[in-house]
């Protein structure tokens, strides 16, 4: 295939003709080692532990480069060590790198099981109560929930989502809409630049409770806090927000048989 392009637009037009079935255009996030090193240099690891759960907090954004081996986990660890001499201040970040290593090991141990639930659901419902398909309104950012619609729009245009947004979205799909985790996982894989069967499918299972001891859910207070209020402020559904309840009430509503 071609390797010379006058511009990024030129590359995009070429790829459209070579892969006519692929949806959308290029991401603003660029591939390549030069881009990866810029992202790595810009990452302020010292701020990570305290702010990482906020949508506007400091996270590395290295995932797509790690997924595709442009950078390696060992290399990123070495870079931090070289820059800061020891890793004591970066325990949380190293632990998150380890999550990737962990999921890869789980995948490697049983590659053919990656689309199967590892354990049974702890939601008090059988899998047959969950829909097989992701509805069009969710896929088209048309639910009327400002948060979920924003996440889908960002996912589809950039191919990246903050970890907390991934967790909220997955919990919304699996527990609030009662859809099989596989449908959400497949949707993510077609868009995430870091899309990886191990990290993705096993994280969906962690939310769903087939790879954890209880389902992960969130409420409005939690989402509003970690998104700094930006999503809820102008939400068309704010008067009937399905997440506006205590955790006890939500658990009772979503999992009455547990």
């Amino acid at each position: 295939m071609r390797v010379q392009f006058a511009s990024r637009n030129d590359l995009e037009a070429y790829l459209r003709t070579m892969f006519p079935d692929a949806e959308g255009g290029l991401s603003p996030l660029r591939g390549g080692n030069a881009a990866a090193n810029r992202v790595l240099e810009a990452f302020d690891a010292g701020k990570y532990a305290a702010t990482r759960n906020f949508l506007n907090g400091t996270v590395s954004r290295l995932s797509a480069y790690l997924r595709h081996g442009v950078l390696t986990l060992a290399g990123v660890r070495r870079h931090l060590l070289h820059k800061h001499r020891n890793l004591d201040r970066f325990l949380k970040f190293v632990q998150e790198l380890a999550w990737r290593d962990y999921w890869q090991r789980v995948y490697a141990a049983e590659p053919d099981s990656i689309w199967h639930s590892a354990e049974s659901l702890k939601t008090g419902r059988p899998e047959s109560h969950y829909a097989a398909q992701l509805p069009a309104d969710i896929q088209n950012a048309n639910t009327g929930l400002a948060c979920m619609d924003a996440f889908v729009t960002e996912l589809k245009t950039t191919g990246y989502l903050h970890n907390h947004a991934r967790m909220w979205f997955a919990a919304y799909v699996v527990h609030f809409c009662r859809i099989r985790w596989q449908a959400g996982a497949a949707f993510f894989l077609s868009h995430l630049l870091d899309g990886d069967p191990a990290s993705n499918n096993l994280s969906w299972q962690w939310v769903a409770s087939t790879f954890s001891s209880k389902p992960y859910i969130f409420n409005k207070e939690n989402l509003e806090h970690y998104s700094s209020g930006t999503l809820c402020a102008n939400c068309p559904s704010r008067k009937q927000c399905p997440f506006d309840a205590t955790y006890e009430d939500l658990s009772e509503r979503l999992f009455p048989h547990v």
Partner: protein
Amino acid sequence: MSKAVYWMQDDCLRPGPGLPSVYVFDTEKLLKEKWSLKRIGFIYECLLELDVEIRKGNPVEQVALFAQSHGASRIITLETPDPRLQSQQKELARGFTLQVELPEPFVELKGRIDLKRFSRYWQRAQGPAMRP
């Protein structure tokens, strides 16, 4: 030693062992998994910085053609957990000598590791992961 080529797979888009190298977009997989253009574009941009021939189609056929065009009987590639890639590796191993190398591990852990939950893995991994 017989001539060798390097098959670069999508979890190791970095400089390889300095042999003639090929990457193949697995068109059937991309279609089946509905890969969006931005995912393909990201990989493509990574490849453009590397000394690698880019092809698309059936990876087994394309890698074999590439190896033949270089008169190579050995194919070097990296170990992967991906079952689709594993079965493609197996198929290529019928006609070529396939050398599957291990990528550098994040942490070296000896013996059996309990993978039931992250916490159990982390008990073993934390020491080596945090060590200077």
